């Protein structure tokens, strides 16, 4: 439960309200290994602690990266940190995307908004071991062209690593020539074999709910659909109960669950 000290290496503005924090361990040790989909508790001293997914490459963890939106007191304070400032880090915590286990399958990744950040380590892994997988399809939806995260990486994945990347936005003005519409509209025509596909979904819960519906309609097995849940996580290790969802703790048993495991409670108002 005691945070490790990390120093800010760089803060990179990704979009108007989203930034990536790059961190090095203060004691000069190696950045700890982690699995794609796990999160850390980041502590801005004197302000508070928040859970944020790791967005760096798990196959080559040179430094720790966390991409987040400026939404609350802690993330706003985080954005104001400067190079060399200290931050507390606990983790990595939680379950991970089933990347190694999915070798040989088609992989369909559906991301909404900031939800692309927790999926980035999975994409890095798929790119690094591209030959182990069938078709890899990324369907990414966001509000507008200005909100598209990791634009450089998206271009690179599409061009150099045989990833099929489809981006859609809710509204577009000017030079945008891509798709306009919610991300679920991309699913019916996306080029993957539903019977041999593993789906990874991350985004706001409403978006995930409709995405699951479309994937199931395409024929993807409930147990092959993986979703990353978000709840009010506090301790990160299943003690406090803040993130309890029926018998599960999102911080300990999640954040990555199969849809099959959650289908009876997913979208339920009381949970």
């Amino acid at each position, binding site marked *: 439960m005691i945070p490790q000290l990390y120093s800010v290496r760089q803060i990179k503005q990704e979009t108007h309200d989203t930034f990536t924090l790059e961190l090095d361990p203060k004691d000069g040790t190696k950045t700890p290994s982690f699995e794609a989909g796990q999160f850390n508790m980041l502590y801005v001293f004197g302000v508070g602690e928040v859970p944020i997914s790791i967005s760096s490459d798990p196959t080559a963890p040179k430094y720790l990266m966390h991409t987040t939106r400026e939404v609350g007191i802690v993330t706003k304070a985080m954005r104001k940190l400067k190079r060399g400032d200290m931050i507390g880090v606990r983790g990595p915590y939680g379950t991970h995307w089933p990347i190694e286990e999915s070798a040989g399958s088609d992989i369909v990744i559906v991301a909404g*908004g900031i939800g692309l950040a927790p999926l980035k380590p999975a994409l890095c892994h798929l790119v690094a071991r591209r030959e182990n997988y069938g078709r890899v399809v990324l369907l990414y939806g966001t509000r507008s062209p200005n909100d598209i995260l990791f634009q450089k990486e998206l271009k690179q994945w599409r061009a150099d690593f045989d990833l099929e990347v489809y981006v859609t936005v809710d509204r*577009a003005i000017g030079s945008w020539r891509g798709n*306009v*519409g*919610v991300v679920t509209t991309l699913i019916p025509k996306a080029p993957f074999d539903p019977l041999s596909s593993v789906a990874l979904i991350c*985004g*706001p819960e409403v978006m995930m709910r409709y995405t699951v519906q479309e994937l199931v309609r395409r024929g993807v097995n409930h147990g092959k659909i993986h979703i990353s849940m978000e709840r009010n996580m506090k301790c990160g290790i299943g003690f406090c109960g803040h993130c309890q969802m029926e018998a599960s703790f999102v911080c300990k048993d999640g954040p990555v669950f199969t849809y099959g495991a959650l289908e009876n409670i997913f979208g339920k108002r009381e949970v």
Partner: protein
Amino acid sequence: MEILKLAIAEHPFGKNLEPRFLKMLAGGAAHVSFKQDQHIFREGEECDFTFLINSGSVAVDIYSPTKGAITIQTLSDGEVLGWSWLVPPFRKHFDARALEVVHAISIKGQYLRDLCEQDHDFGYELLKRFIGVVANRLQKTRLQLIDIYGDN
């Protein structure tokens, strides 16, 4: 005519349609193409045609004097463009612009309305298919309206 019948049958909109209905649709249909950036129709125009898109993508725009064309939706192969032919006063509500070369099957709106009046079995079958298109668009539009990627 036979080629058009086959083309309509192969489009998702025409899937499993009775042969006689396919023949009726084909009677008012034609293959059409649009160049990149060509307007297929504009807001306020009379709704002469509906289009079954075979390839390419189309932006559905609202024009704003201050912002220019605001794209609210894109449609591509396998989708239907234009259902205002069904609803009085039969005027287009949006602009449609080809984002790349578009190949489609056009079907005359007045021709469809006449057939629907003359043959209610045909009309009912057509309405069932168009209501599916409309319901799907409405659901997707609702998701766009709630700002699905925000902190809802």
